[in-house]
């Protein structure tokens, strides 16, 4: 939701980035204020996921120009774990499996690390168990999740719920959800989206990276951005997503090139 006088959380200016020497981001611009929900859409290969992972500090991506400020500070100079502790959360498109490490253990360590950073109370295993079970209800998760290895053998839907559970535990200021809707059936999508909606409030912001408009029926964005070839070429309100769903992406590119409004 757009609030009057809300703070700028994230500011991306002229961002260029490469992976294996190939330039993927070419002049990315984006401002996100607290309270807002942004959707970044675009065809395959437009750089959406690169942008999401780069904000989180994935080591495969190299910044070749521009700047990213998070709460006014240079985000790019922080190590990935420092970004996470500062309140940047990435919901993974493909959550990673970690065999042998119990989910409960992993979640508690992550939670306590972030709590410690914020000068808040850390929880022992028993206290944490009560706390996490409460949060799991939000996502209609079975408690046996806690005993299983992190994401190992989870279905696509279970993995995505686990991501949102982590968001619920870590209470990030900025949550970037990368294709959170992919691989979800309609019931799971409803539950996951419901979870995200409950976590959104005026002091945090959400950036949804998605291919399809479908997710945006459940999580209504304040802004919709279209990415192509490594930058945002069009920004609109939630109705833009519907238009994209109907007409595809090609016309946006044509319009951006010619500067002429292309009507259907």
């Amino acid at each position: 939701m757009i609030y009057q006088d809300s703070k700028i959380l994230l500011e991306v200016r002229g961002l260029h980035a490469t992976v294996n020497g190939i330039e993927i981001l070419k002049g990315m611009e984006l401002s996100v204020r607290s309270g807002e929900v942004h959707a970044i859409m675009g065809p395959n290969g437009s750089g959406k996921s690169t942008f999401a992972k780069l904000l989180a500090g994935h080591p495969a991506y190299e910044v070749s120009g521009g700047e990213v400020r998070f709460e006014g500070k240079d985000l790019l100079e922080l190590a990935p774990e420092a970004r996470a502790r500062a309140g940047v959360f990435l919901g993974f498109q493909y959550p990673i499996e970690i065999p042998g490490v119990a989910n409960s253990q992993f979640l508690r360590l992550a939670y306590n690390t972030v709590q410690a950073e914020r000068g808040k109370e850390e929880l022992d295993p028993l206290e944490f168990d009560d706390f996490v079970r409460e949060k799991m209800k939000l996502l209609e998760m079975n408690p046996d999740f806690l005993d299983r290895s992190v994401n190992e053998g989870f279905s696509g839907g279970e993995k995505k719920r686990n991501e949102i559970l982590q968001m619920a535990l870590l209470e990030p200021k900025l949550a970037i959800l990368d294709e959170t809707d992919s691989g979800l059936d309609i019931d799971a999508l409803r539950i996951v989206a419901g979870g995200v909606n409950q976590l959104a409030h005026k002091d945090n912001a959400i950036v949804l990276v998605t291919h399809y408009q479908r997710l945006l029926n459940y999580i209504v964005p304040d802004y919709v951005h279209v990415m192509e070839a490594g930058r945002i070429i069009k920004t609109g309100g939630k109705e833009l997503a519907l238009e994209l769903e109907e007409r595809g992406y090609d016309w946006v590119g044509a319009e951006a090139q010619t500067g002429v409004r292309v009507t259907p």
Partner: protein
Amino acid sequence: MSTALQNLVNQPYQHGFVTDIESDVAPKGLSEDTIRLISGKKDEPEWLLELRLKAYRQWLTMEEPRWPNVKYPKIDFQAISYYSAPKPKNKLASMDEVDPELLRTFEKLGVPMNERAKLAGVAVDVIFDSVSVATTYKAKLAEVGIIFCSISEAVREHPELVRKYLGSVVPVGDNYYAALNSAVFTDGSFCFIPKGVKCPMDLSTYFRINTQDSGQFERTLIIAEEGASVSYLEGCTAPKFDTNQLHAAVVELVALDDADIKYSTVQNWYAGDENGLGGIYNFVTKRGLCKGVNSRISWTQVETGSAITWKYPSCVLRGDNSVGEFYSVALTNHHQQADTGTKMIHLGKNTRSTIVSKGISAGQSNNSYRGLVRIAPTAAGARNYSQCDSMLIGERCGANTFPYIQVNNPSAKVEHEASTSKIGEDQLFYFAQRGIGAEEAVSMIINGFCKDVFQQLPMEFAVEATKLLGLKLEGSVG
């Protein structure tokens, strides 16, 4: 490999100091004279000298094993000193007479040599280079009939027991290094648990190699009579030298009817530097004989050190219904090489064995599991379960599994499972994205991976092993 991983596996070795102490070192070289010298220094009976010479003559006809998956230059056995003992070596009446320099050394290593010390809930036999320098809690253990002392002392005080069992599990000519050990062994621990006695405390031996160019050839013999039980721990460290040192030990365990021996090792010999210079060659023969019915021998090892490890703690399951177990974590980093595993020889009926092996490779190291499960025609109803898991850290290390299975009885049941996994950049990024740094992430992954083995270790050892793996891997993640 990313830098976070790199930094994590490259923690400096903490036990690499040398104790400045005057030692009585035999001249380098190996011959019958060397053996007579060792035997003479220890005032040994004639039968033991004969056993040594027999072993030596057999050794001369044997070839160094070439089948292990390890590479090293040929060892010059004439360039090694086979005896090194700190002076003065007069007999000690109490701990107060131990050279304070030695006490300080072991204090630094965290080995409780002082019975009054708070942490000392464990009886320790301390071996420094070639000799046992002290054994704690001897008197207390003697009250229940347990003999726990150095093997040299056992030869003097309990010759009938030593003569009966020494070489009964690992014959003098068993293999190249066992033969060498039988010829030149200098000291080690002896432990005898009489019928029906449950050992009231953990027993342990701490091995320390101090002198450059000396080899350590220790001999351990543990006997548990009918219904007896004991838990035995072993720890090892050595200073940092640029040259390689040879450690060729033999450990023999004998379990009679209903006896139970649990043998745990945390091996942290100096592994050489990050370029593979120096480090211990750890060529060890460990074997347990489940002689009696319903007996049980369990090996648990955490192998983190040594330039080369060549070691197969084994169980010969002769008694009906006897049980053999092998739980192992072997970690290699830098240029370390390990070829380790076990042998489970099923002879008796309804014998059971379990093998759980976890190999972790980092740096440019090479880690092999080699295991034999043999079911003899006599072993009706025998069962084995083996699980061999490998984990790779980085791109330049290797892991191999060589399981040998020989089943000669149709009623036997043998299962083997294996897996290979990798700590990847993506896993570490996932942890990092949740605020967790690389070190904690790796330690969590490794502990998860090794859980089944660590559960088998006595409490304090498990804590130490967990810490040790963490230290060893510092700098390897990145």
